[in-house]
């Protein structure tokens, strides 16, 4: 779990899909319809002529280029920066601070490792659980708190109900220690260790 803006991802992908479909449909139309193709070339040539007029009208004094060309360059660089931001926003929102409290005497902060160790310690002796890992992320919305994701690798054939109950006890213990209920997401998964470790033959 993280703060990836999934709605934004899907909106931008949808926009790109629509642009691609539009461009492709235009090309198909131009290939199959001669009148449309001629119309395209006529409109395109006119537009290019008008662009060249505009370029000539806004010449930078003492140079061979136009202000418009510079503006286009700046626009391209802005788009590039926005694209880099989009890429960098994937998978963000992780935090390693659970809670922070500030008063007159100073501030107290609780590290996410505290929760991780509570959970891992209480599941370590469970034979149905092969390994546990804990991640934390900043929850969006009014609360602005921290969420915990507990990833449990179950032994092959382990009952998800039993594993869930064990994780529930661990979370109850953590709630009591921390004095608050953090939002928790539990994922019970199989992995390479599940595939290679023995299954519990005595059910």
């Amino acid at each position, binding site marked *: 779990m993280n703060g990836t803006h999934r709605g934004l991802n899907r909106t931008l992908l949808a926009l790109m899909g629509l642009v691609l479909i539009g461009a492709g449909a235009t090309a198909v139309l131009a290939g199959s319809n001669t009148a449309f193709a001629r119309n395209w070339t006529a409109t395109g040539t006119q537009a*290019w002529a008008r662009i060249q007029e505009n370029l000539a009208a806004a010449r930078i004094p003492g140079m061979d280029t136009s202000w418009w060309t510079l503006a286009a360059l700046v626009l391209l660089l802005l788009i590039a920066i926005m694209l880099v931001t989009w890429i960098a926003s994937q998978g963000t929102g992780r935090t390693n601070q659970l809670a922070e409290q500030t008063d007159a005497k100073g501030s107290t902060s609780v590290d996410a490792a505290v929760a991780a160790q509570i959970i891992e310690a209480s599941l370590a002796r469970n034979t149905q659980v092969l390994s546990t890992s804990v991640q934390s992320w900043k929850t969006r919305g009014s609360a602005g708190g921290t969420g915990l994701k507990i990833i449990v690798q179950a032994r092959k054939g382990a009952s998800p109900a039993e594993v869930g109950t064990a994780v529930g006890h661990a979370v109850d213990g953590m709630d009591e220690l921390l004095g608050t209920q953090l939002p928790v997401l539990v994922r019970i998964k*199989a992995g390479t260790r599940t595939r290679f470790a023995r299954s519990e033959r005595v059910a």
Partner: protein
Amino acid sequence: MSSLQATEPRLIMRMNRREIRSSRAGWSILAAAVLLLAVLWLAVELVLSLTGNSALLLSPTELALGTASLGTATIPAALMAAGGILVLAGIAVLTLAILPGRKPRHIVDNDRFAVVVDGEVLAAAVSRTARTAAQLAPEQVTSSVGRKRIDVVVRPSSGRTVDKESVKDAVEREVSSYGLRQPMPVNVSTTMHQAVGS
């Protein structure tokens, strides 16, 4: 314990939903990287033409002229083929944006936290239950967990029969104890090829 601040059901639902659906992060990165390459190439060509250097592939002027007369300057068949490929790519990208992208995971009902179980974990647990009920070796039972149902295939030892109903009962009882949000009907079948010597 009244001082505890409970997790809102809405937040639990949101966490569950996010965990079983794809974020489309990989495709977004790919799309952004392709666009970024195109934009940077355009910018480089623009700078090269501004400084009077020769172009890498096409100068901006050539590119603009080419686009303006593309309709008549290209062989119609090639134009249609290229257009068709673009449309197909567009449909694929649009599909990625619209479809939920369900992962093979299942939501477990719980009030305190969100729980998501991999289909693989469910299948292994179902196999274990089935083989315990029918007293078989691990290799004699294979299970697959789909989005809406569970299939169990039992390979009885040669010369013996397996009571499908009792296996089905055992598996159904086990699965109902998991508290899955989506009810999953169980289907048990036996194969004709029986296991020899097990």
